[in-house]
């Protein structure tokens, strides 16, 4: 067995027990007593700020009151009415930037009501004890294609199916779930939750999933619009931005999303190789997820190098603190200029940056960090635009998800507007479904 000190990229740096502990639930589920105590703290605010802060507008005070009166199942229904992926969102939402940041008790005491964990308590309770809680409306005979089985596509499909439409979901991967299945840190979605949630969601009926079908390859916009009454694109961002640094092609330099995907799909964490000296380039959630998990797998030194200052970092302060608490070093104002090594990466050279108000500039001063593995996490890009008009680098959509092509909607990370968050994707998929429904029922 290797150890954190083993040079190069090596598997089994930590014993199985340690790995199991490291990748256990980041926030364990509330026991009923804990949930009762946490729920008691909610003030049942008027026109509550937490609801305003939630991209899916979940009636948070109501569901917390339902928990506190002993009906977590009713609470879950309140959540699912707005957000059918409320179970995953309870696990992955950056609540510290959304509902919990807005909580009046954050203002009052610096300690918000633990909305995310309460949401998980409610949704877990219902999902554990009840069949799918919604019934389909009578079948309309309308057929809708959804491309992408991620949060946006699943939310859209569920809402459409509920209204009686028949939905076919196409996904490029062999498994449904999108980033819920392949992209989120393992300790946020334990026990195969993403897959279980998809199964549960499909309990509505009327949804068929066709895996291994990629838009642009097996699927074309022409055939989709021809065969279906409406099309929703929730294809996400399939590409990864390049570093555009010298030596980027050396061994040991990888896309962070691929590393995270491997982590999520592996049956044996000890079999996953990771470097001794890992450097992650980027400042978003993907960078943090890759860095933290590298550390948890047993990397000796893990550094996140971000080209701007802390305040500009895409990952929340909470995520930054999570990273540092696990032993990850955060390095600000440093951008990669070269990757050195003979075949495989040995060092990464970073240039310090400064922003005097007229844009980010390199100072000319560089520093080298030992690195046997470099993860690129500097953003993802749209790979399939389906010939639709773009806004910036994303598919241009209206507030209800309509694209430039009649009968085609889009939502989630691939579409313009909103943050690239699971919860935002769910909201966009849901809202597009309602617009499609209106359109179809004319």
């Amino acid at each position, binding site marked *: 067995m290797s150890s954190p000190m083993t040079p190069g990229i090596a598997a089994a740096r930590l014993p199985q027990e340690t790995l199991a502990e490291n990748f256990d639930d980041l926030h364990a589920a509330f026991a009923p007593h804990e949930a009762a*105590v946490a729920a008691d703290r909610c003030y049942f*605010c*008027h*026109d509550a*700020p937490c609801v305003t802060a939630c991209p899916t507008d979940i009636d948070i005070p109501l569901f917390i009151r339902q928990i506190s009166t002993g009906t977590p199942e009713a609470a879950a229904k309140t959540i699912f009415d707005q957000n059918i992926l409320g179970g995953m969102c309870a696990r992955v939402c950056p609540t510290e930037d959304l509902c919990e940041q807005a909580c009046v008790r954050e203002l009052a005491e610096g300690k918000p009501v633990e909305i995310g964990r309460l949401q998980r308590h409610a949704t877990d309770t219902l999902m554990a004890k009840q069949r799918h809680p919604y019934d389909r409306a009578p079948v309309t005979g309308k057929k809708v294609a959804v491309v992408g089985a991620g949060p946006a596509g699943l939310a859209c499909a569920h809402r459409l199916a509920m209204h009686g439409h028949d939905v076919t979901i196409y996904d490029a991967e062999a498994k449904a779930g999108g980033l819920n299945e392949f992209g989120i840190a393992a300790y946020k979605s334990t026990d195969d939750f993403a897959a279980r949630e998809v199964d549960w969601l499909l309990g509505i009926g009327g949804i068929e999933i066709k895996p291994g079908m990629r838009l642009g390859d097996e699927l074309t916009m022409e055939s989709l619009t021809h065969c279906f009454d409406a099309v929703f694109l929730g294809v996400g961002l399939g590409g990864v931005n390049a570093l555009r640094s010298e030596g980027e092609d050396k061994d040991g330099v990888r896309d962070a999303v691929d590393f995270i995907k491997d982590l999520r799909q592996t049956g044996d964490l000890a079999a996953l190789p990771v470097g001794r000296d890992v450097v992650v380039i980027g400042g978003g959630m993907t960078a943090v997820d890759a860095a933290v998990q590298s550390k948890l797998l047993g990397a000796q030194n893990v550094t996140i190098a971000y080209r701007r200052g802390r305040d500009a970092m895409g990952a929340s302060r909470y995520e930054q603190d999570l990273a540092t608490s696990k032993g990850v070093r955060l390095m600000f104002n440093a951008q990669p200029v070269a990757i050195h090594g003979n075949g495989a990466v040995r060092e990464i050279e970073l240039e310090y940056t400064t922003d005097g108000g007229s844009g980010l500039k390199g100072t000319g001063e560089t520093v080298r960090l030992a690195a046997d593995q470099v993860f690129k996490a500097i953003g993802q890009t749209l790979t399939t635009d389906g010939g639709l008009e773009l806004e910036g680098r994303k598919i241009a959509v209206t507030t209800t998800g309509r694209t430039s092509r009649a009968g085609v909607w889009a939502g989630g990370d691939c579409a313009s507007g909103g943050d690239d968050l699971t919860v935002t994707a769910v909201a966009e998929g849901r809202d597009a479904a309602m617009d499609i429904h209106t359109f179809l029922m004319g």
Partner: protein
Amino acid sequence: MADLTTDFLGIKSPNPFWLASAPPTDKEYNVRRAFEAGWGGVVWKTLGSEGPPVVNVNGPRYGAIYGADRRLLGLNNIELITDRPLETNLAEITRVKADYPDRAMIVSIMVPCEEQAWKDILPRIAATGADGIELNFGCPHGMSERGMGAAVGQVPEYIEMVTRWCKQYYDKPVIVKLTPNITDVRKPAAAAMRGGADAVSLINTINSITSVNLDTMSPEPSIDGKGSHGGYCGPAVKPIAMSMVSEIARNPETHGLPISGIGGITTWRDAAEFISLGAGNVQVCTAAMTYGFKIVQEMVSGLSQWMDEKGYTSVEEVVGRAVPNVTDWQYLNLNYVAKAKINQDDCIKCGRCYAACEDTSHQAIAMSEDRTFTVIDEECVACNLCVDVCPVEDCITMEAMAPGEIDPRTGKVVEKEYANWTTHPNNPGAVAAE
């Protein structure tokens, strides 16, 4: 540190905090622990006549009402008087009193409404050396079905009669414990006074069902699927108890009759409030049953600190201080005008004041886009609901308007002079001010 020594009916105790007659005072073991913890006195759990003792149920005796975080706000019980032999209790009382001569030892009694029954038990209690007796005319469950407890307390003539027997056959102070399960507490208090009672103590517990088990459709506490009303106590009953204490304190017929205040006293502040309304000392039960005997230490330190801050040197100085300010509604000053004021620095923007006022009151709070809540003086009637629902203490306050200012709600000048309903022009029975 203020001297908390209390002289109630000539019975001295190091502080005004007595444990009420209840489970905590049922036996020597508990009472010794209570005295060690610092309680000023105890009223021993009610004794019955000689002979086979009563029996209690063998299932739950208590039911509860909770606030947030499962804080116990109200407790009810269906326990009866002591279920231990009379001789055992008398022997224990004698021993404990001998060992703690500086503490008050009162014995609660409940025997049938026959002169002989009282004549029999009183000398035996006198022999224990206890400082006085308390007549349990309040217990609302079980014993009342047998013509004792509240069944006596609800008939002023019986109260007077039994009290007179006790004064005749017992030469130490007699305290009559009153039931709140009546319409006008002044009547039984006056009856006790006529019978020669040295003091009244109140309130005993209130008829109550704390909850219903919705699976078995049985009231709680439930005994094999059935429930019976119990006696309610704890913080939830404090407002009822204080009103009753104040009624007796300000009633000309009973004014000056010593009162031992009981009902939901949980902190030093509760005790100070009872004392200000006319109680010469207080009795505590539920707080001890919830937190243990140690809470008396907070009561002692708190009352003492407050008295020091206010410059009171004895408990007696505080007794009845608020009584002159308890009045009838008709004498309240209708020229007094206040307005709610929201301190924006303290506001946490929960909007509960807004929801309460907008939905259920006077639409007197405005809410802006950025959740700033402000009082609309033109609509505010100073009802205080916003203050009551605000989670932050003192964030919303009621500010009195100065005489001469114009009340934006009525357009009228705030008058300096006091004027009440009895002279108000809208009152058909108004009498002209002299």
